[in-house]
Each structure stands twice: as structure tokens, then as C-alpha cells.
């Protein structure tokens, strides 16, 4: 397993090329092209702002103003996470031709999916930055140094889960459909459109075992809430857990690897 893990480094050029191809192909033929990477999160933000400030104005606490910005801090990384998982569940099947007919390292495919979605996340960040400036939120530059760490933890966690999902979906095609529903549930079980404090005390425990809670909380603390970053313990624990998930995911993927060419 570790020897094939070491090979991953050799596929850097391949991964890079495929991520670029993925991004290029996605908006090829559309009028706005790359700008959709900006518009999509902006439109989403607009919808949520409308719903939660005009339709349901009393849904949040005072310390969460401006609420649109609060939600955006969570929705942006969540979109990265959920599209990575959804797309990776299909990635081996979609790339079946490569796996069956060409000598091709299959693990590259889920990695490319996660990375391509990460690039979209990065492209959404300027929008977020614009809103932070617009609302004149105080941003602590020391706090901001945590941001790459949070992104890294999310990257490792997503990739680990993507390995699991892509390998298992080859054998269980219905995983894809199940996953869509599961992710909706997961979205509402994660403090994205509400804060941890709003949850009843006896529900806190449940929120705490959800890894996404800590990721979202970290984003919110760095980008939204005032004061120094106070979530580093949870974040680092999650980072360690993510590495375990990554290795376990890769282990499962590696074990099932030989069956891909026959089952896809």
C-alpha cells in the first residue's frame, strides 16, 4: 500500500493536467466560461440572503449579523465538500475507458475530482473577501494564517472519503443515489445556516461527533467571528482523524483496485 502511495507523487503532472482539463471542459461552450465559478456562489449567496433576511428574518441571533456573510463562510466550503463526494462516487465509472483500456492509475481520478472542486472553492474566495470588505468585518491577520490549515484538513478528509466512495460505487452503483440524500441530511446536521450555540444543549454532543461541524466552525471563527481563533484543538484532532480516514480510504481503494478493470 505504501509503495503505491509513494507512486502518487509521480503522477503530479498527470493530476495537474487532468485538473486543468476538468476545469476547461466544464465551462467550454458556455458564454460566461470561467466566470460561472464566481457567479455560482454569488447567486447561491443571494438566494440564501433573501430567504433568511426577508422571508425568515428572525431565524438567527444578533451576533450572527450580517447573516448572509455567516452562511457564506459555511456554504462555500460545504459546496466543495459535497460536490467532491458526489462527483467522486461517479468518477471511476465515468473514466471506465481509461481504467479498462489504458494503463492508468485509477487513484488519480478521485484526487482530480477533489482538486478540481477545490479550485472552484478558491475561485469563490474573492467573492467572500469582497463581502468581508463590504461589511467591514475585522479580520485578524494572525487568525487568517489558520485558513490554509483548515483547507488542508478538509482536503485530506475529502480525498480519503472520495477514495472510499469511488471504489465502493464500482461495486454498489446505488451508493450514488444514497449519497445525494445523505449529503442533504449532513448539510442540515452541520452548523452552516445556524450556529453551534443555537442548537439545544443535548444536541451539542451529536454536533461534536460530526467532523464537518469543526471544519465549518473553524471557517466561521477565522472569517466571521471576532476574537482570536479558539478552535485549534478540535481542528488538529480532526486533522489527525482525517489522515486516518485518508489512509483507510486508500487502503480500501488499493485492495479493490484489481477489480476495477473488470467491474467498471
Amino acid at each position, binding site marked *: 500500500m505504501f509503495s503505491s502511495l509513494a507512486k502518487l507523487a509521480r503522477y503530479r503532472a498527470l493530476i495537474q493536467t487532468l485538473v486543468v482539463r476538468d476545469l476547461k471542459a466544464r465551462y467550454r461552450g458556455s458564454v460566461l466560461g470561467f466566470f460561472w465559478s464566481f457567479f455560482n456562489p454569488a447567486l447561491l449567496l443571494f438566494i440564501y440572503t433573501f430567504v433568511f433576511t426577508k422571508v425568515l428574518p428572525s431565524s438567527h441571533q444578533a451576533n450572527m449579523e450580517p447573516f448572509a456573510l455567516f452562511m457564506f463562510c459555511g456554504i462555500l466550503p460545504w459546496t466543495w465538500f459535497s460536490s467532491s463526494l458526489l462527483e467522486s462516487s461517479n468518477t471511476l465509472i465515468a473514466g471506465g475507458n481509461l481504467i479498462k483500456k489504458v494503463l492508468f492509475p485509477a487513484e488519480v481520478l478521485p484526487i482530480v475530482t477533489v482538486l478540481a472542486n477545490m479550485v472552484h472553492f478558491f475561485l469563490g474566495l474573492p467573492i467572500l473577501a469582497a463581502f468581508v470588505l463590504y461589511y467591514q468585518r475585522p479580520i485578524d491577520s494572525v487568525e487568517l494564517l489558520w485558513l490554509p490549515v483548515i483547507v488542508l484538513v478538509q482536503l485530506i478528509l475529502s480525498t480519503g472519503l472520495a477514495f472510499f466512495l469511488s471504489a465502493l460505487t464500482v461495486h454498489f452503483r*446505488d451508493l450514488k443515489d444514497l449519497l445525494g440524500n445523505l449529503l442533504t441530511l449532513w448539510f442540515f446536521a452541520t452548523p452552516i445556516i445556524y450556529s453551534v450555540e443555537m442548537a439545544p444543549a443535548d444536541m451539542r454532543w451529536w454536533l461534536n461527533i460530526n467532523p464537518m461541524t469543526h471544519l465549518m466552525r473553524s471557517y466561521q471563527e477565522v472569517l466571521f467571528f471576532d476574537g482570536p481563533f479558539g478552535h485549534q484543538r478540535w481542528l488538529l484532532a480532526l486533522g489527525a482523524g482525517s489522515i486516518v480516514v485518508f489512509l483507510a480510504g486508500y487502503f480500501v481503494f488499493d485492495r479493490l483496485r484489481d477489480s476495477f478493470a473488470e467491474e467498471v
Partner: protein
Amino acid sequence: MKPAIDVINVSKIYRRYARRRQFATLKSALLDGSLLGDLKPDETFQALRNVSFSVPKGCTYGVIGSNGSGKSTLLKCVAGITRPTEGEVKVDGRISALIELGAGFHPEISGRENIFINGIMLGLSKKEVQRRFDEIVEFAEMQDFIDAPVKTYSSGMYMRLGFAVAIHVDPEVLLVDEVLAVGDQGFTHKCLDKFSEFRRRNKSILLVTHSLDLVEKFCDEAHWLDKGISKGEGDPKKMVAAYVMNVEDSEQHSLAKAEATRLAASAKNVTGAPPVAEERDPGSGVRDPEEAPLNPVDDAETTRDGFKATEGRWGTREIEITKVSISGPDGESGHVFQSGDDIKVHMTMTAKEPITDFVFGLGLFTADGVCIYGTNTNLEEFQPSEIVGECSVTFEMDSLDLIEGTYRLDLAAHKADGYPYDYHRLLYTFRIKSRVRDVGIYRPAHRWDFGGGITFKGRLET
């Protein structure tokens, strides 16, 4: 010297899932607690069994065999796409596999970008692709379209580009799976030239193909696979000959089986009339060719409305043809012969009562029902006297000069006026094999004579 490809005792077992497995869902797997159990095969299919060979550097090695003999599986094992269940494959040097051309092309982006991506997928670095880029485009003859998205390409362009990229990876070992079928004549020649260039540069080619000509002309060695088992390796000509013999054998079997089925199906019709359900040839005033020689005394009206050549058997069985065999020069009955063979059609028949009015006839047809020849004892002016008891009739052809193909026979015993005793229409089939690819139906005995300033380098042994 280390061989380029070393295949040692390779076996490959494919999993085959029973029907219920195909509907296996995650839910059922979790409920049964058999998540990992479900990932194990419960039925297997052995695609390769203990296959071993090695390909020295600079050698072009052909693999032949019928469909399903494991050729492509072997190639995939060598390419590393699938792992052999048992045994080992060692390959020395960079491999490029021409298995599926253009796999991994993305339809939305341009040919130019796809060349880079495909090249990198096949193991080149970006710089290496850059260096070879012009050559690739030129080889694929795509100069004008290289910046158009691949989805706008014709399938030929797609294949050419795929081939061009794969061949310019500059592999030490090239694996080719029946890809020369794509592209027009010109491109095929270009590919063959490229292969020859490979050989000159002491690189190895493993070629899987159904084109036996290609194997004979091009390969240094050949390997014959049959149902996953190695049937031998060595001189390509010998291997191809052995394989062709084997194919003929299995054709014999299938023809014999089909004939038995047809006879069993037609044996029931003991009435005096041909099957009525047969269609008339609408609007064609042409005489149905097979009708004429056998029923020469039929009036013109009947012959013009002759039946379509559908197989069947009818007659009163006052004379019954009980056994028919076709034999070649070795005297053994069979169904596959060489062009120009001395062929005998042998009929055994029984007449329960003595009969004085009888004619024996025979018609020879191509597979699509064109009469090649027909005759009977009446036309050849034999005067019948009497037939009684068990008798035999043999029709001997000293040299049956037909071109390669499948042929069918009509055999009949009837009265001089056409009244049928036992009429077997198109029930017997045989194949003629020929190493010459001539066309038409009949091959007159011939030779070529050249005079003046015409010279030939020689003649290939066929």
C-alpha cells in the same frame, strides 16, 4: 539478453456473478452483513491457463486464436491493465498499448490539448510531448483540425489521432490489439511502415490480430491460443497453418451438426408434394435455376413459377435416400475440402418394390442459392431398367474447381416426368477452402504465361 516480454505461467480467472449478484445493493449487503463477502466471486471463468512465452528484444510476436481464446486478456495482462490471477509478467522498458485508440480524449476540448493530456497519460512529460507535437499532428494528418474540439472529429480522425499519440510515445514494447482495422488503406500502410521502423530500431511488438496474412508476413514468431490454452508457438507460417486446420475441423463439426438438424426437421414430410408454404418469386419471369436440371420435363408454366430455393425434403419414398456422404481425396467423409479436390457424393437408397421409372439427379448451389451446375441420369441419357433393394449411387467429380466459400447440394430420386420419390433440397452443405483469394464461382484450370520484358521478383508461397 534479457527478453522484452516474459510471460511466466500466467493464468487469469474472471469473476462471474450469478444473476442475483447483479442486483446486489449496498442495503442488501449491509443487511446480510456480507459487504466483503459480496466482493468475492462465486463463479469463475478461466480466460487464460498457464500461458508462458517470452519475446526477445527486436522481435515481432503475433498472437492468433479464435474469438474468446484469451488474446485480449493476455494483452491486458502484459500491459498491466489487469493483473494475472497466477503467474508473472515481466516487461523490460516503456510499454505503449494500442488497445483502445483515443481512450481518454475529452470531447469538449481541442485536439491540441488532448494530445498533451493523452501523451502525459501515456507517460510522457510535457516537454516530451512538446518535442513530438508536430510529428504527431503530421502523422495523424490533422494539421487543419488540430484546434477544433475533438467532438467534431470523424471517427477516422479520432482513431488516427489516438494512434499517432500512442505510437509517438516511443515505447520499447508496443502492444497492438487489432487496431489496424481502422483508417483507410493509406493510413494502414503508414502504420505498417511505422511498425517496420520499430523493428529496425530493435524494439518489440506484441501483435494480437485475426489477420493471418499480417502474422505470416510481419511476425518473427507466432503463438496460438485456444480457449485460454497455449496450443503452440513458433514459426508464424506453421502456426497459422495449424490454426487454420483447427478452424476447418470445428467448421466440419458445426456443418455436420447443422445438417443433422435439417435432416431431422425435414424427415417428417412424406407426402408427394413439396411444402406449400413456400413463397413464389414475385414478378420474376426468370426460371428458378435449380428447378430446371432436376425436372427437365416439367412444362414451362411450372418452371417459371418455380419455388424459391428453400431447404426441405419431400417425396413418396418409394425410393428412399437413406444416407448421403461427401468425401474428399482421402476417401473420408467430411464437410470441408480444398479447392480442386477430387470429391465424391455418395448416396445410399432403398426401393421397397421394384421400380422401372427412375432418375437420379444432383444440383450444386452457392450459399445464396445460385445454381452452379445441375444434372441427372435422364439428361445424360441413362435408360432406366429396374431398381430394387438397397443400392448406392456415387457421383464423382475429379477436380472441383470452386473458389473459397460455402456450397449446398440438391439430391433427388424421381420419375422421368418429375414425380418425386425422395427429393432433398439444399440439405447438404460443404465448404471449399482456398489459399488464393480469387473471385467469382468457378476457377478454370489455368496458368499464366508472360512474354517480352515482363519480370517478377518471384512468387510468394501460398
